[in-house]
């Protein structure tokens, strides 16, 4: 992807540990009531970003009153969950305004509280370089 001046945009490079069973990423969620950091798993198999109910309440949203709901196909079940739009989400230093998130708590056995899905990742160039143990991101 090229910048407005026709130059390649600089990449940010993050460590990537192939021995881990997930790719963890810190995500800053913003809303009318504040901001909260949520550790998520990078998930190219998730259509939407999944955010925990507690974090959404903390930044000023009430998933219980959301009028928009979505059926999403999870491993082994179909879940019907609220979907709302947060003011912004930021990961890898890249901020995406007005991001739709599905409100869902992952089971407590999960070490992460959410999933960073395709509706965020499609704004980026993502290169998972496992042999070099690097995750390269540019916008």
């Amino acid at each position, binding site marked *: 992807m090229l910048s407005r001046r026709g130059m390649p945009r600089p990449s*940010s490079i*993050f460590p990537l540990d192939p021995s*881990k*069973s*997930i790719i*963890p*990423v*810190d*995500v*800053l969620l913003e809303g009318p*009531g*504040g*901001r*909260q*950091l*949520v*550790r998520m*798993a990078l*998930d190219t*198999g*998730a259509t939407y970003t999944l955010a*925990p109910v*507690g*974090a959404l*309440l*903390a*930044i*000023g949203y009430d998933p219980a009153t959301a009028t928009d709901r979505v059926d999403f196909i*999870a*491993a*082994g079940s179909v879940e019907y969950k609220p979907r709302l739009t947060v003011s912004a989400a*930021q*990961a*890898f*230093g*890249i901020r995406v305004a007005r991001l739709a998130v599905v409100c869902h708590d*992952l089971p*407590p*056995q*999960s*070490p*992460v*509280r959410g*999933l960073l899905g395709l509706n965020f990742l499609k704004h980026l160039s993502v290169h998972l370089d496992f042999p070099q143990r690097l995750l390269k991101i540019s916008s």
Partner: protein
Amino acid sequence: MMKRAKSQRIQQLRRAFPDEWLLIEVDRFDARTTTPLTGRLLEHSKLRDPLEHKAAKAKNTKRLMYLVFGSDALPQGYAAAF
């Protein structure tokens, strides 16, 4: 009055409690990489739910809360299919 916890590196806090949830008030944050750097440990617990409620109390304040598990590893014997 409760003594305020000292600011520590987030990695250091997580390493100290690898199998617990930690509620941290972040005081240094790298916006270029969206990485919390240092913070004050407010509470830690084996259970996530009680800390979720406490994190929600920061609503409408400037405080940046981070509720995170001490390790990124799945529990022994588990695999993920998100």
